[in-house]
């Protein structure tokens, strides 16, 4: 990293830390709904443990080029990627770095609470990921393992999918120890480009994720497509915010989100899908399985601007509660300022269907196994939305495997 760029990023981090110090943490005063005490969870961090690449062997999606980011720093870069696909922030040109810093500085000014600044304030690096048509139009595929070894870390990812280009990105959040991890992602998909993100969050071994805050902002231009499919195991506190802006005619965004929570794990999702022009489509399917004293929430908003005739949006949140102590809150919302649009939303909360359970048992399948089948069946739809079979296998093993004997 040249001194100039390194200094510029450091100045940005210092500014983020100052901003974080000046702002309050999320509180009931700031959040009118589903407030969670971020400060309390921040106290439970572990000292960093040693990172060994070999420990990640079982977490790499088979057949996909894999990069490893440890505590926010790019630690391993795969070979064979098209030139420029994956760049450490420190390796950017001055012009590219300046553009990022300018954008992130503006974002800092909009932060409403301290935790929103952490992905920059705690940041030790990050990467720029891009795909262009230069490769002949074949999708560029990359698996990004974001590893936290304990303590605090932040990571920023800047993603750009060029016109007519395709990028498949798999993001795995892995905690080797109780950590506070903050990830900020900004993605731009240019005309007719396609971005598919498969995201996994689970813990290695018995160690629960302590605190993971991630926010992603996607900008989709004309006929651009993006999908974001996440499968989460939750943690002491996991909060995800996804903002999708559909700027171009024909732009499409699909979200699939599955939380499989046990014990006292938490997983909270906020989505804001903005249709800025007509002819845009979006779908959101959010499913939660909650056992023990687990907690989840979904605060989802579809916003359709005025004069956006032809926009179409759907949002569904379905929940399966497995114990009396589990809790799910849901707030699906529509904000529609146009006349000729299609928009639907809905939410369900229930327990395993006793008729389905009886039917499976009547065929000889033991109650425990039958319940596991029903849970897997409930989770199947978002899992099938994952773009890559290898990622589906990882998700099934990490999240659904625990249901077999539950």
């Amino acid at each position, binding site marked *: 990293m040249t001194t100039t760029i390194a200094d510029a990023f450091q100045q940005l981090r210092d500014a983020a830390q100052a901003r974080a110090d000046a702002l309050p943490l999320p509180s009931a005063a700031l959040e009118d709904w589903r407030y969670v005490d971020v400060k309390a969870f921040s106290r439970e961090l572990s000292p960093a443990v040693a990172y060994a690449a070999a420990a990640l062997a079982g977490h790499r999606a088979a057949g996909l080029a894999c990069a490893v980011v440890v505590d926010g720093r790019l630690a391993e870069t795969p070979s064979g990627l098209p030139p420029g696909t994956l760049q450490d922030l420190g390796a950017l040109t001055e012009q590219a770095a300046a553009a990022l810093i300018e954008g992130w500085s503006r974002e800092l000014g909009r932060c409403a609470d301290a935790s929103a600044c952490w992905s920059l304030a705690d940041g030790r690096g990050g990467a720029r990921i891009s795909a262009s048509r230069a490769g002949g139009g074949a999708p560029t595929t990359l698996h990004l393992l974001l590893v936290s070894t304990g303590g605090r870390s932040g990571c920023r990812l800047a993603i750009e999918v060029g016109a007519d280009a395709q990028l498949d990105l798999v993001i795995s959040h892995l905690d080797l120890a109780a950590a506070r991890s903050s990830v900020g992602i900004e993605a731009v998909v240019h005309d007719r480009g396609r971005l598919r993100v498969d995201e996994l969050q689970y813990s290695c071994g018995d160690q629960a994720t302590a605190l993971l805050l991630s926010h992603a902002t996607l900008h989709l231009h004309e006929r651009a497509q993006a999908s974001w499919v996440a499968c989460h195991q939750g943690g002491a506190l996991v909060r995800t915010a996804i903002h999708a802006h559909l700027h171009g005619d024909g732009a499409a965004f699909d979200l699939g989100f599955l939380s499989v929570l046990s014990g006292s794990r938490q997983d909270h999702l906020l989505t804001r899908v903005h249709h800025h022009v007509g002819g845009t489509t979006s779908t959101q399917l959010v499913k939660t399985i909650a056992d023990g004293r687990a907690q989840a929430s979904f605060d989802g908003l579809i916003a359709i601007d005025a004069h956006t005739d032809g926009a179409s949006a759907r949002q569904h949140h379905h929940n399966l509660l497995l114990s009396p102590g589990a809790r799910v809150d849901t707030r699906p919302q529509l904000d529609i300022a146009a006349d000729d649009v299609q928009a639907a939303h809905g939410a369900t909360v229930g327990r395993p269907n006793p008729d389905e359970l009886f039917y499976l048992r009547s065929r*000889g399948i033991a109650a425990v196994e039958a319940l596991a089948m029903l849970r897997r069946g*409930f989770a199947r739809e978002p899992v099938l939305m994952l773009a890559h079979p290898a990622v589906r296998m990882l998700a099934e093993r990490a999240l659904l495997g625990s249901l077999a004997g539950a």
Partner: protein
Amino acid sequence: MLTITDLTVTVNDLPIIKGLSLEVKPGEVHAIMGPNGSGKSTLTKVLAGHPAYTVAAGRMVFQGRDLAEVKTEERATSGIFIGFQYPVEVPGVNNAEFLRMALNAKRRAHGQSDITAADFAPILRARLKSLEMDDSLNERQLNVGFSGGQKKRNEILQMIVLEPSLAVLDETDSGLDIDALRVVASGINTYRRADRAIILITHYQRLLELVQPDAVHVLVRGRIVKSGGPALATELEASGYDELLKAAQP
């Protein structure tokens, strides 16, 4: 094979079956007919061990074992199969995988090893072909979006894959067109064997023309009020249940 003695079944303390007795021997096919609300489906549910149905009195003994203490899944693995009138849709559960798991549950109960997906596939294909069922049904979720006829065929498919000792088929013929009825009847006749028994619950004679019963029973107000040979079904088709209902007035 199955002996039911003075069986009384209640649902929410309301008696539905009131002192029913029935003996079914290996190799036999028994038809149970009766008007709506007479307790026919209740009999299937209680044989399956549905938790909403309470045996208030009497006994059900299957292959020498009192079913009172036998769980639903154990009844199935020991050889009782219920073909339901309204098969349940189970979203997200693959039809073929469900069948393989059910078969493996039975195999494990009999000390056999699990059958692999690869070994199961040709078995399933052959059974599907015999019922003129489309292979694609097995890629679908269990009964989800199936037509009424497809659901009934799927029940028969499960029966011939699981090869139970006793099959209790609750109105398997309802909702079937003529061709589907012929195929389902063929499946039942193929399953029929000297060491197996079948109880057919039906409203109509048309299934009994294709699957010849050894005995026909009329269930009215929770009791078997008349039993006879196949001719009884023909007689009921002509006369209806009015006289039997009047005679069974409490």
